[in-house]
């Protein structure tokens, strides 16, 4: 039971990260039908920017560690959003009219570009976030000591997701985003500036990715320039698991994948941890290709 609780909370914390990343994938896919392969690397960029900000601004001197973490996440979100905006302008917008394969290759190129740019700037070695930003206290849950950071991670990702959910479902701009996802031409006829909405999505998605990057840096303490590939792929699997293009689906998929992975690593084998997500992917595509919450029937050819 103790082991189970530990793994469950760990899975929820990491699942929150997957969910934040999956939201970026699912929003872009919902609007452009494009897998933004560089999204995972934007996440890494966020982690490294957080690292640099932490070192240069001396945020750890802030009164409360939590406040410092919050400021860090916000700053990193802003910067990564700009990177995402530029990415869409340079690598995706010129390809809007050409076939999907070109966009996929362009996305791959962008991913390689970001990954190697980070390696050139920060070196191939992993970087370590300084200690003591997040409180090291523990909570007693059902008689088990669980680190508080897990709950903080979970709460932070949940808060961001609720904010996004509110934004997409309750504001005018959110309605425009949903309209563009359903039918671009009809949305244009209704006076929606489609290009602007796409740019906006490429601001929101990477911002969430950047936040996830800082959070993973604070949680694991260690970041590498190529971690975006694995995290990105798993987050994409989470998006498919929940039903791609579906925002609550991405949240659910991320959490589920995090829990499945943590429990699988604990009870099956830690060496096969990375393979579990891919097995989940293959199973979901065979048995329910629309994902758990996907209402729209994916056009199986």
């Amino acid at each position, binding site marked *: 039971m103790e082991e189970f609780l530990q793994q469950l909370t760990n899975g929820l914390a990491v699942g929150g990260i997957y969910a934040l990343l999956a939201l970026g994938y699912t929003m872009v896919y919902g609007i452009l039908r494009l897998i933004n392969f560089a999204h995972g690397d934007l996440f890494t960029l966020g982690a490294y920017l957080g690292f640099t900000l932490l070192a240069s601004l001396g945020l750890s001197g802030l009164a409360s560690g939590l406040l410092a973490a919050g400021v860090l996440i916000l700053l990193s979100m802003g910067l990564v959003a700009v990177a995402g905006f530029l990415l869409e302008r340079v690598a995706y917008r010129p390809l809007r009219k050409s076939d999907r394969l070109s966009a996929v290759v362009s996305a791959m190129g962008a991913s*390689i570009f970001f990954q190697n740019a980070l390696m050139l700037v920060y070196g191939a070695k992993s970087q370590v976030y300084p200690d003591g930003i997040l409180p090291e206290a523990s909570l007693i849950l059902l008689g088990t000591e669980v680190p508080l950071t897990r709950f903080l991670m979970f709460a932070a990702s949940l808060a961001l997701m609720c904010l996004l959910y509110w934004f997409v479902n309750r504001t005018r701009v959110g309605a425009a985003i949903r309209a563009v996802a359903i039918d671009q031409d009809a949305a244009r006829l209704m006076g929606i500036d489609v290009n602007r909405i796409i740019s906006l999505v490429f601001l929101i998605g990477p911002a969430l990715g950047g936040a996830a990057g800082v959070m993973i840096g604070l949680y694991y303490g260690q970041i590498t320039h190529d971690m975006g590939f694995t995290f990105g792929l798993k987050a994409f699997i989470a998006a*498919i698991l929940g039903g791609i293009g579906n925002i609550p689906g991405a949240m659910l998929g991320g959490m589920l994948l995090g829990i499945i992975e943590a429990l699988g690593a604990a009870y099956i084998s830690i060496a096969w941890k990375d393979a579990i997500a891919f097995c989940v992917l293959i199973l979901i595509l065979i048995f329910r290709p629309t994902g758990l919450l996907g209402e729209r029937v994916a056009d199986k050819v």
Partner: protein
Amino acid sequence: MNLARYARYRYFPLCLGGVFFAIMASIPWLLNEAGAPGSGIAQLDMLNKIGIYALLALSLNIILGQTGLFHMGHTAFFAVGAYATAILNTMYQWPVFSTLPVAGLLAALFALLVAVPIIRLRGDYLLVVTIGIVEIVRICLTNNIFGITGGANGIFGIARPVIFGLAFSSPRQQYYLIWGFTGITVILFYLLEHSRFGRALNYIKQDELAAAGCGINVARYKLAAFCLGAFWAGMAGTLYAANIRSIEPTSFNFFESVIIFAIVILGGAGSITGVILGAFLLIGLQDVFRDFSSARMLIFGAAMIAMMVFRPQGLLPARRRHYGARRYLGKFPCAVRRQCGAAYNPYAEDEGDCV
């Protein structure tokens, strides 16, 4: 006679291929004559590497370029072939050359197993699943599955191939083996491209629904293309294992898949000439820019974006295919005339190329 018209001639590909392989055959001799240090061993090694990537890209071209399936997991089949050869050779003392068909068959069988459940998936889903397959294969190899893959260290001490008592051990002999195999592959794949099977694949790529309407069993043809491509990738794995002599899981990571994918797309999907050109450019230039070490991958990524923005069809895209339209001109004059415009007279003596 302008070049475009000339290029349409039936024997043009033959001439091009002949000239290319004549040049390739004379390269070791040329390197020797030019007095390259160590008889140009470094250059030959590089060309061997290009040859293996060309083979891989040609086999991926069947799946990606000709059938239009988004398959980014080709390294998995390559790995299966290479490991099959390594295991059979080092553990069961099979001669390397006799493992060639086995490696191909095992890779094809593996492809069949993984492709059956996913072959009907739409484009980008297939892409993600095939990426997943590469990762699963790599994790299996690293975790020493069945206790025969040697874990993270891989397998070393693979023998050189011997054919009829002739050992292919020096770089030059390896060169002739690899490029000889590539030459045979090009001929076979060229014939395949224009066979009934190849036309069916092309039809599926252009319009799946119409192909199904014409009685092509789309799923079965896709599977066949998958298995054929995997078969060839498996054999390329044998050549790779025999050339490099020690293999490890990191040689078969996802990034290799991206490179092979990029060779096909940047060279020109569906075009054999384009794919070979792509292999030379991507692998050769990587070697030339080795001094820039990490920055070269940065350039590689930027070049991929630039290429897609400015020339998405690739350097030498496949030309539209025409199959003896002339034969049918007299029979369906109205349809043909509509296509060719008023300038066409179906009863004229001189049959113009109606395209």
